[in-house]
């Protein structure tokens, strides 16, 4: 593996109508090559109908350790959930 080849993240849409999902990464010289490699590596068993490749360096991500300060899961806000509201049985399917 030559050191200068860029890293790409690969996303695949398994079926029309579904979101692209991250499946892995690979090294390639440019986006077109990355797309071909992704086809060869990640779609050998009809895993998908559409591939996205994205430069790994272009991905900005948060860290799990930042979770509390950055995006508190709001466990103290149960009222955001439908189940928080107790309704009479007859209309509880709302």
């Amino acid at each position: 593996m030559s050191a200068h080849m860029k890293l790409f993240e690969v996303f695949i849409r398994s079926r029309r109508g579904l979101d692209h999902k991250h499946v892995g990464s690979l090294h390639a010289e440019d986006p077109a090559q990355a797309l071909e490699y992704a086809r060869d590596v990640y779609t050998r068993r009809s895993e998908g109908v559409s591939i996205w490749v994205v430069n790994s360096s272009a991905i900005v991500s948060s860290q799990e350790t930042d979770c509390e300060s950055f995006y508190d899961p709001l466990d103290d806000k149960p009222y955001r959930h439908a189940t928080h509201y107790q309704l009479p049985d007859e209309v509880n399917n709302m």
Partner: protein
Amino acid sequence: MTKIRPETDVSPQEAVFQTRIDAEEKIEPKDWMPDKYRKNLIRQISQHAHSEVIGMQPEGNWITRAPTLHRKCVLLAKVQDEGGHGLYLYSAAETLGASREEMVEALHAGRAKYASIFNYPSLTWADMGAIGWLVDGAAIVNQVSLQRTSYGPYARGMVRICKEESFHQRQGYHIMMTLAQGSAEQKAMAQDSLNRFWWPSLMMFGPHDSESAHSAQSMKWKIKRQSNDELRQKFVDQTVKQAEVIGLTIPDADLSWNEERGHYDFGEIDWEEFHRVINGDGLCNRQRLAHHVKAHEEGAWVRDAITAYEAKKRQRDAQAAA
């Protein structure tokens, strides 16, 4: 009513497109699609987005006046969700090549509409109950149906939105239930709110199928999956019982169970009012739009500051690299 074009002037590309739709497959952003399909979707999705955002106003009106801290937190969370729904929808429209600026401009210029229900004022606390119960309830009926719309990003946006909507309706119903179980005055306030929001909620589903301008082609393209009248009936059927359970009366003398149809019959909507409000002459049309324009203009400095900061950062990075 628009005519569905005869099969004979359909190009091979369009035939492939229609076959895909007929087979219940989604259309994705990079697929070929007829220009009219794209335009029709941009119109529908952007108007849906505008509705989410404008819809924050009647409820925002009561955040500072919620009767308890808990109700205030709930209302705040709901209004925040609606802003998020606007974002999902604008993004879905952007996958079709529409820009956010164009869409907002169309709203401000009055070329793009939004749900007419938001042109009614929210006069009492009970209106927060009626809006959640009825307006979100009606929106859910429509949005559940749209989870099966033919355009992938729109359908996926609807799935995300529907997951968040259920709390909206339940918190509204909970407000109505609490008021209905309260003092005579509180119950009267809930009833008054139901009286004012019932008919506008039914209008949310749009004109009768026979009058609907975009319906035939939209159904063929599966942008819409169920007709206005079908969705409206579904909403009435599920809501009557909910009103009964909390002892409120739906303001319609013609409302009655039709054994034969297996549905409720209900009275005729005041279509004159519907057209008046949708064409700009409701109680709050001017206020809603003026407020949106004002908020947009007053936010300009934030957008400018972000751009200036980015430019400065780029310049610094370039200097550091040199």
